[in-house]
């Protein structure tokens, strides 16, 4: 039998323990709550994204259909009108193509089917072709795109760089498209590329609305657009930069941003030259995978 005093002591200990438990439970409850909030936020973002891309795919198609119908119905003498309609069709189709590429690339990255395929690429030509593809869009906003490629004279083949051209193309397209989208009209965009030892560096500088400091961290999150009001004026589904970041990750590259609200943004990417070595630090010399001798461990 326990004395009263002992019983009281025991009770005290148990009470203290249960109080501790209650605190822990409350803490776990809070954690659950925050996870729950995050999940519902992600759900909301996803449905927002779906309605967004529906708009972005349906609207260009509607204008392409309408415009092409107009062209078919127009007379031969209306050549100037026809030409301007064809230009609009091209620009809508171009935007559509770009958006779809981003969506498919995101899906491919998620499915793990996006390993880089490195080939020797003429960087200068690649960037020039991207810029000329965006020329029409830039002209609509009276923007000038200045491109400079700093050649290292010591490297005779400085133009050439082993990389995945398709992925690099999408990365640069996203940066340039953003630059044009968020630029103030009648301004300029600077694109500069240079080699830094074994890396390719590329900078896209715009003089546009810029990004707030507090938002710099979330711009790579999927589906996030910083300002919903911009949404109505400018198309975009918030996938571009997250795709850009993931592609750079796949190629062991990185991206830096310097930006000031109201002044503009500078995006700088750096990509190491791709080669045949594996990321874990083992060189593949072609003889790595000779299996079938007695030394192999079999599982």
């Amino acid at each position: 039998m326990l004395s009263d005093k002992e019983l009281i002591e025991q009770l005290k200990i148990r009470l203290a323990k249960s109080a501790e438990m209650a605190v822990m439970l409350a803490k776990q409850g809070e954690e659950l709550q925050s996870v729950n909030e995050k999940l519902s936020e992600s759900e909301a973002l996803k449905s927002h994204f779906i309605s967004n891309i529906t708009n972005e795919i349906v609207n260009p198609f509607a204008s392409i259909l309408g415009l092409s119908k107009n062209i078919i119905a127009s007379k031969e003498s209306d050549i100037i009108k026809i030409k301007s309609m064809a230009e609009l069709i091209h620009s809508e189709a171009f935007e559509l193509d770009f958006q779809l590429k981003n969506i498919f690339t995101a899906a491919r990255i998620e499915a793990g089917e996006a390993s880089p395929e490195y080939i020797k690429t003429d960087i200068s030509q690649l960037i020039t072709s991207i810029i000329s593809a965006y020329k029409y869009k830039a002209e609509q906003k009276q923007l000038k795109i200045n491109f400079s490629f700093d050649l290292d004279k010591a490297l005779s083949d400085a133009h050439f760089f082993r990389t995945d051209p398709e992925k690099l193309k999408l990365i640069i397209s996203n940066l340039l498209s953003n630059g044009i989208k968020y630029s103030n009209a009648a301004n300029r965009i600077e694109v500069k590329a240079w080699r830094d030892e074994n890396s390719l560096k590329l900078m896209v500088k715009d003089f546009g609305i810029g990004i707030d400091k507090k938002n710099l961290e979330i711009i790579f999150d999927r589906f996030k657009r910083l300002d919903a009001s911009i949404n109505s004026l400018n198309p975009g589904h918030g996938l571009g930069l997250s795709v850009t970041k993931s592609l750079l990750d796949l190629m062991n590259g990185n991206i830096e941003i310097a930006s000031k609200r109201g002044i503009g943004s500078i995006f700088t990417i750096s990509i190491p030259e791709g080669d045949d070595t594996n990321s874990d630090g083992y060189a593949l010399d072609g003889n790595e995978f000779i299996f079938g001798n007695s030394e192999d461990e079999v599982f």
Partner: protein
Amino acid sequence: MRSSEQENNIKTHYLYPAALFAEPEPHLVDTILGSCVAVCLYDPVKKIGGINHYMLPFWNGTGLASPKYGNIAIQKLVEKMLFMGSSKGNIQAKIFGGGEVVDTKTNMFKIGERNIEIAENMLAELKIKITGKSIGGKQGRKIRFNTETGVVLMKLIQKST
């Protein structure tokens, strides 16, 4: 000289980090692992297999949920096996890699160890039996996975600094 299997015209595939591979056609899938982990899933009834190669244990919730992360890579691989017609009860797993190949004094991140842990935990949760493994240690591994037979050949490798 290549091994006899390759002479039998079975297709080969080199699996890059952060990728996964699962196709109904028989393949020899090669990959090199350091602190990364590869989970090989094999269905002895359908005679098909799939493999992933992930670099980090958990997706942090931002950016894209790519199979660079263990929790995503394992889930996607199981989904692919089910999509190819396997039933979950038949699937067996073999896990490789997760060595601490980079010599750090503090070893604060324990990437290899955590990569292994997520594989073991997730497979246990999914009730998928682990029938073979070579994990941890300080060496890298080269593996070749035959998706038709489920056999994995492995070599330990010295670091080539």
